[in-house]
């Protein structure tokens, strides 16, 4: 009977019951914490949600991206930021008045010797000084560049707004980490973040003859408003879609070790690793979804294009911006899938160019 609910919903019910029990006893006020549905929500939402709920707070999530949120994003954010950062501003704006705190973790590094992105590191301040009228911001710093030990401090930092009970925080942190591990292992088993977090399923193509790898940061791939639902569109053109989230970390590590220079962006590393993995698996085509103005992808997408070209795999770079017109995207995807099919059918027979 539970299969119609997503993992998140089930987790929410469980925590809700714990809350009722806990606060029924002490009669405290439930603190509401708002989390914008943007950027690294697609990576860490289960972690933070179970953490705050285990502490007895209520987590408020912003709605899925809508036209209003997009308009607010453009209105409040500096105009040369990238699309996902802009969207984060819009989501933060939509949460005004709904919660006691706005949770914007300052994610500087999530692995040893690696970074995320300067804009994500400076996100709390960007939002704070751009959107007026926000609730107080919880800007916990997560910086695992030197060692993993600072993670504990980050949890205590974030929890200090809700409770000072050290034992409770410790327990919540353990719970949160196990929820995160569960989420990651669900991703590795082939589920998509949109399935786990939002219970929206990809339409499976009835008879697919193409295998297409879609690379890109998770916030570009799974926000179906900003990417104009590209994953489902590909399915409509009878292509089976593969995304980087399903790759094991060890494989990512192995493949992303390109000669010459360590890739120091965690998000970029995943794309490069997935690219080489999919080249090895002989995909029919690779689509890279990049947001306009993304600094990391301006390099990674270019590298991916070079490597895909050298290996003779059709590559298409799709750049997202604030446009919401679908026709252009449809045409391009149709053209791309057609080209691949023609290539497969008669690559060695092309009288027009002989």
């Amino acid at each position, binding site marked *: 009977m539970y299969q119609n609910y997503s993992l998140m919903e089930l987790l929410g019910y469980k925590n809700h019951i714990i809350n009722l029990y806990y606060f029924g006893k002490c009669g405290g006020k439930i603190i509401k914490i708002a989390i914008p549905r943007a950027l690294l929500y697609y990576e860490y939402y289960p972690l933070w949600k179970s953490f705050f709920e285990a502490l007895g707070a209520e987590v408020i999530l912003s709605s899925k991206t809508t036209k209003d949120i997009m308009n607010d994003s453009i209105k409040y954010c500096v105009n040369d*930021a990238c699309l996902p950062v802009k969207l984060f501003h819009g989501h933060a704006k939509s949460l005004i008045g709904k919660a006691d705190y706005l949770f914007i973790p300052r994610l500087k590094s999530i692995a040893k010797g690696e970074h995320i992105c*300067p804009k994500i*590191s400076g996100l709390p301040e960007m939002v704070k000084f751009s959107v007026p009228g926000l609730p107080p911001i919880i800007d916990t710093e997560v910086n695992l560049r030197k060692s993993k030990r600072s993670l504990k401090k980050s949890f205590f930092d974030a929890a200090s707004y809700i409770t000072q009970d050290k034992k409770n925080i410790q327990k919540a942190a353990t719970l949160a980490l196990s929820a995160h591990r569960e989420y990651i292992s669900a991703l590795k088993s082939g589920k998509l973040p949109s399935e786990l977090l939002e219970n929206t399923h990809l339409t499976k193509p009835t008879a697919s003859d193409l295998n297409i790898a879609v690379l890109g940061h998770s916030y570009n791939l799974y926000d179906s408003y900003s990417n104009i639902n590209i994953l489902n569109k590909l399915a409509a053109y009878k292509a089976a879609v593969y995304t980087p989230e399903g790759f094991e970390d060890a494989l990512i590590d192995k493949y992303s070790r390109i000669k010459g*220079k360590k890739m*120091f962006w965690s998000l970029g590393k995943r794309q490069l690793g997935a690219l080489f993995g999919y080249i090895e698996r002989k995909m029919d085509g690779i689509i890279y979804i990049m947001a306009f103005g993304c*600094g990391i992808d*301006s390099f990674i997408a270019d*590298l991916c294009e070079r490597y895909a070209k050298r290996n003779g795999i059709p590559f298409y770079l799709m750049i997202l911006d604030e446009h919401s017109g679908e026709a252009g995207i449809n045409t391009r995807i149709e053209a791309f899938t057609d080209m691949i099919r023609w290539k497969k059918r008669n690559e060695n027979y092309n009288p027009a160019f002989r």
Partner: protein
Amino acid sequence: MKITIPHLGNLYVFVKVLFDCLAVEYILPPPCTKRTLEIGTKYSPEMACLPLKINLGNFIESIELGADTIIITGAGGPCRYGYYCKMHEEMLKDLGYSNVKLIAIDPYAGLPALLKSIKTIFGTVDFINIAVSGVRAYRVMAEVDRLDKLCYYIRPRELVKGSANAVMRLLRDKIYSARNIGEVKKIVKETRAALLNIEVDTTLNPLKIGLMGEIYTIIEPFTNFNMEELLGDLGIEVDKTLTISKWIKEHLVKLHNHKEKAEYDKACEPYLKTPIGGHARESIGHSALYAKRGGDGIMQIYPLTCMPEIVASSILPALSRDYDIPLLTVVIDEITGDAGYKTRIEAFKDLLLKKREAKNNDGLLCRN
């Protein structure tokens, strides 16, 4: 082996003197021109930041002159600059320059790798000699940086407009054709004397603008339309905290001026709590300090899509409100038409003048 470097303001002075001292063969890239930019833009990823494109242009122009080894510095992120060396390698490879060798001086790659690359560049393990020559070259470059600084003072005050520019314009060509360190030193000394000879109006109190932002676009005069000259000719005194000599000291040798760092870190604290890469923190901290020192306005310059400076640019308006100091953000891309920028700067200057007048007249805009 003929070594070349990318342009970065007065970096060419350092490289020239250093390689002259150690008798290394090198080719200085021709000064950045429209052609450099065109080459770079043509072959670089579309959305990469401007320094990557212009550096590629420098490399290709040097290779055309016969260079076969490129030196570039690396870094550890999160700014894109740290990954330039790999990108350049791939781009040059795809362009067919497979005989060109790329040596990265990367403090983050570990000491053995760093020493090895230094050894391949100079062909010697005499690190004491290299260090001594490095210090000598550094001193000359710092002297040229000081000449620039002197010009900031002279330009708005000179009685005959354009005299400082006339002196400075010859400097680069002269240094390019100098044969040894003695000649370079002599040229710098003569230029300094010529600058000091210019008659100035010491009673003048010109408008003061602080140039903040991304280091490459601030330092390299080609990319920012000779912003210092432009502002100086409009009668504005420029203040620039980032210089190439300071960058080398902090980035490559890791010698920070701790007192200064503590000062701007403290000024930056309410606006940006942690360093985020690039020079975002410097931009914000120095802007606050500059406002406190009594500057009239702040100009932030950065190339399109520069990640750290975008964060700074969304925070600086709040700082501008708090310190009551006007702010002009200039984003630079491949467009080479400077009329738009000039218009904006002139308008900004008028605004600053009116603001100063209003301040002197107790809030009245006019006292007629």
